[in-house]
């Protein structure tokens, strides 16, 4: 069968939504016929491609011994563009963020060197022998724990995402961000964290009846503190010592990080040094002046801990190039701070019709969930969207709905659907829905608001 006939028969048999979206089971049923998924490239990488000479049966690296063993493995030198993208304050370079390159990655686990960063005043270089955790306040016994102490407790692991409350906040701007997908949505990463349940240590200190909140403080130059409800602490919070099997990286909280699964990133306090039990929140700067969301009414949402369900197509996504019409895999990530992802739907016709994507198992509670769907691009303009639903029944909103509910000045907790438009040349860019387009752009970009 030639390609054209094959395309036609597959489309007739398997198309389940507009503009070429195919049944998610197609990869399983007809995998071989789809072995020629068309080339998808970064538009910049494509320009650098050199035509290689005729390939001999033995490449040069087969004709000489390879390099010896290494103490700590590094990525291939050919993968040097798969890096975090930092944006920081010019005068205070330790104040800012670095984005995970989600658009250059696959699977669900974020390698430790690519986990996003948000620091308020740099990365402390902590000697674990000099670091202690103090638990005090409305406890029966004020106790210190050294890192060596904590390493002796029975541990648990949980694979979960951490997402900064300010992730994707360029979506509040009137004009679509021109960055690559990860570089405005990649303040979200997913790791296996391992450590000691907070409830175990609270059993040891004892809890006085009046205790309702735990104030957590970090040992960085910012000495950031945040208030966390004690029921969350007793439920599933834990003190992580390990990230993806190795001790936590300094930029992610070495030697000790509080993990509160599903809560926005700032509550997962890094470099944890102190937990104070209290009957009320401390009303720290980062739970009053920041990480609160101003509404059009002038009131602000406060203690908005949970990350609501969200999804993002990572490929194809902005700045990529579809080389020619044909078959492509649409893939991306979905996550929810409220539990498991139950469904991800994809549209290729700007939301007119939707097809359910395949979720890669295991689908885990409060963790990145990879979705995939085969798609036949016919060479015309197409607008791709993904929409996540979580186990509470919550459905990820369109941008216009979110803005209707919240206005555009809340800065935090942007979880709306992202659109990628494929133009006739195959170039992919970020667009808003037509009714959301506002010109001219008189707005002040909020990308820089990281203080």
């Amino acid at each position: 069968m030639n390609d054209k006939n094959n395309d036609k028969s597959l489309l007739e048999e398997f198309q389940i939504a507009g503009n070429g979206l195919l049944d998610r089971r197609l990869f399983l049923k007809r995998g071989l016929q789809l072995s020629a998924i068309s080339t998808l490239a970064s538009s910049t990488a494509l320009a650098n491609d050199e035509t290689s000479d005729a390939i001999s049966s033995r490449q040069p690296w087969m004709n000489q011994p390879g390099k010896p063993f290494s103490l700590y493995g590094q990525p291939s030198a050919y993968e040097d563009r798969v890096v975090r993208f930092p944006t920081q304050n010019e005068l205070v370079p330790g104040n800012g963020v670095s984005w995970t390159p989600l658009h250059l990655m696959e699977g669900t686990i974020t390698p430790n060197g690519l986990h996003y960063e948000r620091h308020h005043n740099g990365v402390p270089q902590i000697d674990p022998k000099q670091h202690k955790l103090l638990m005090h306040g409305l406890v029966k016994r004020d106790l210190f724990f050294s890192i060596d102490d904590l390493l002796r407790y029975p541990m648990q692991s949980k694979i979960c995402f951490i997402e900064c409350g300010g992730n994707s906040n360029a979506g509040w701007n009137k004009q679509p961000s021109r960055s690559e997908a990860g570089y405005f949505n990649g303040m979200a990463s997913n790791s296996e964290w391992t450590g000691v349940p907070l409830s175990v240590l609270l059993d040891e200190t004892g809890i006085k009846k009046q205790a309702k909140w735990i104030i957590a403080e970090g040992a960085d130059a910012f000495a950031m503190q945040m208030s966390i409800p004690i029921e969350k602490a007793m439920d599933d919070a834990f003190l992580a010592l390990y990230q993806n099997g190795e001790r936590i990286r300094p930029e992610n909280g070495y030697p000790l990080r509080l993990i509160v699964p599903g809560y926005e990133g700032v509550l997962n306090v890094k470099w944890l040094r102190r937990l104070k039990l209290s009957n009320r929140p401390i009303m720290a700067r980062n739970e009053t002046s920041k990480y609160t969301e101003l509404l059009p009414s002038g009131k602000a949402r406060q203690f908005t801990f949970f990350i609501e369900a969200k999804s993002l197509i990572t490929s194809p996504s902005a700045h990529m190039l579809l080389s020619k019409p044909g078959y492509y895999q649409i893939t991306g990530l979905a996550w929810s701070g409220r539990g498991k992802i139950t469904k991800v739907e994809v549209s290729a016709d700007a939301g007119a019709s939707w097809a359910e994507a395949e979720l890669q198992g295991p689908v885990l509670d409060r963790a990145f969930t990879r979705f995939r769907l085969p798609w036949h691009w016919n060479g015309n303009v197409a607008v791709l969207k993904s929409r996540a639903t979580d186990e509470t029944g919550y459905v990820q909103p369109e941008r216009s709905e979110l803005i209707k509910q919240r206005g555009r000045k809340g800065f935090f907790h942007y979880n709306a659907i992202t659109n990628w438009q494929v133009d006739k040349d195959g170039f992919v860019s970020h667009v808003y829905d037509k009714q959301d387009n506002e010109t001219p752009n008189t707005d002040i970009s909020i990308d820089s608001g990281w203080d």
Partner: protein
Amino acid sequence: MLGHPASPEEVASWDSSVFPDGEGLPEGQGSVAEGEKIYQQQCQVCHGDNGLGQSADQLAGAQMALTSEYPEQTIGSYWPYATTVFDMVRRSMPMTAPGSLTDNEVYAVTAYLLYLNKLIDKDDVMNASSLPKVKMPNEAGFINIYEAERKTN
């Protein structure tokens, strides 16, 4: 049971948290005039003249209301508690030398910032007794989403 008892003195030296009612505020005091000098030396380079903002946040002088197209979220227009200013400055500021200000200096800078926001008078002195009494215009401006969700669930 691997924890080690912490003495009251140790806890006191570690515990720097300041609550809205003033719990946790230290001894000492500071004036607006003293605070202005410290602000000019330590804060102005990032936060701008009179707290109007530069590379770092605008802290005072809000002209645009929180309901406007360009809301200005300053200490005076947005922050619900005056004690948060003291707590934040003492633990985090200045960014190049955090922890370097004395408690008296922190009280003084706090006083100056509250004065810039027209929340206290030029002659007022901030200390553990006066600071929690400063009335913040936006104290009632927040909706506690966590509590609201607990009630509905």
